[in-house]
């Protein structure tokens, strides 16, 4: 077990993933970082992007997260995601429709707070599309 990382991905709704893996790549706010066993303790914020899970050299899971926090210690890596979804489960057309809807709402938003909120939602949805696209090309 010493050369594995106990990776846990939790969203407010559920515990998405909890397993020992060889490496995870987490999209940190200041750049992606890979976590192997014996990583230095680290706490980072997470930007919307894709978490990639490796077993050996093979990618076993790709999960989209809409921001959150990551805590890394020598033996475990915990990601608290606001929203998490497996890439293969994302329905691209639905996300695109959602973006259109949000854009419309943005046009009719009355307060700055509302506008800010909608903009952040759009950014997340766009990141989701991007994640799906980049996965297709890989």
């Amino acid at each position, binding site marked *: 077990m010493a050369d594995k990382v106990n990776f846990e991905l939790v969203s407010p*709704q559920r515990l998405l993933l909890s397993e020992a893996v060889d490496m995870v790549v987490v999209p940190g706010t200041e750049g992606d970082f890979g976590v192997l066993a014996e990583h230095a303790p680290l706490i*980072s*914020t997470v930007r919307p992007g894709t978490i990639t899970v490796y077993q050996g050299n093979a990618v076993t899971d790709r999960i989209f997260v809409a921001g959150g926090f990551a805590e890394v210690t020598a033996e475990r890596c915990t990601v*608290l995601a606001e929203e998490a979804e497996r890439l293969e489960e994302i329905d691209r057309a639905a996300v695109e429709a959602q973006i259109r809807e949000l854009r419309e709402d943005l046009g009719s938003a009355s307060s700055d707070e509302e506008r800010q909120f909608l903009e952040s939602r759009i950014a997340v949805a766009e990141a989701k599309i991007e994640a799906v696209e980049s996965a297709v090309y890989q």
Partner: protein
Amino acid sequence: MPSLKDLRSRIASVKSTRRITSAMKMVAAAKLRRAQDLALAARPYSERMERMLSSLAGASGGLGSLPLLAGTGKDDTHLLVFVSTDRGLCGGFNINLMRQVRRRFRDLQGQGKQVKIFCIGRKGAALVRREYPSALVAQVEDIARPVPSYDKAVEISQRITAMFEAGEFDVCTVIYNRFVSALTQTVTPQQLIPFAPPANSGTAANGDAGGAAYEYEPSEEDILSELLPRNLAVQLYRAFLESFASEQGSRMTAMDNATRNAGDMISRLTMNYNRTRQAFITKELIEIISGAEAL
């Protein structure tokens, strides 16, 4: 002695009551399964977040600049967030909570503190309004339609944060029913502001990372200032879910009891009815026989 007609209509009404309570029990049982899944699924997140925050708070060692973490430096005004239900007929659910609220209220007032109550759910608000009308500062209803949503929790946490920033209170505690099983719920107070690491945090003790120096990306303060409001929302969300599951459990038990009571009552009434009917028949027979003998 009640007439036969009265008895018949009472039996009919108890029977229809039993139909209703048993239907409510069924509904509660169905909802309970869903609510229980939700509540259990939300536990890991809030527990991990608490763990992360406590190690962060422990490592940052008195980072006094963030009031959400360190408090305002005094504890004159307490805010109690009282998570009750919107609908009744769920046994002692709200009453048990209210008992805890009352005790806290008295304790705090005894210490010369001011207490404010933020009430969630219609039933709790009614109880509070009757007893402490001046303490009720805010009230939210319909958080669980059909199930508690995270967005709603965020909204409420923002309201609470705004109140905190406006200096309306110093300490915030949420009081909710924690779901143990369909039969048991425990009234749980949890302090939210300032952040209090859970007393039984075995994780901090078994020394993983041992409060060791974490690296922070971006800075510690940025993370904390994002994490703390998030934590508030998450803890509230969890309280809502636990409370929702408890409510269904409590209602199911209460309705089960009610159904059983109605059943007992029906058999008692039916017995009574039959006896009375028999008595009438006997009486009529006696009248006929004695009439015939008199001839």
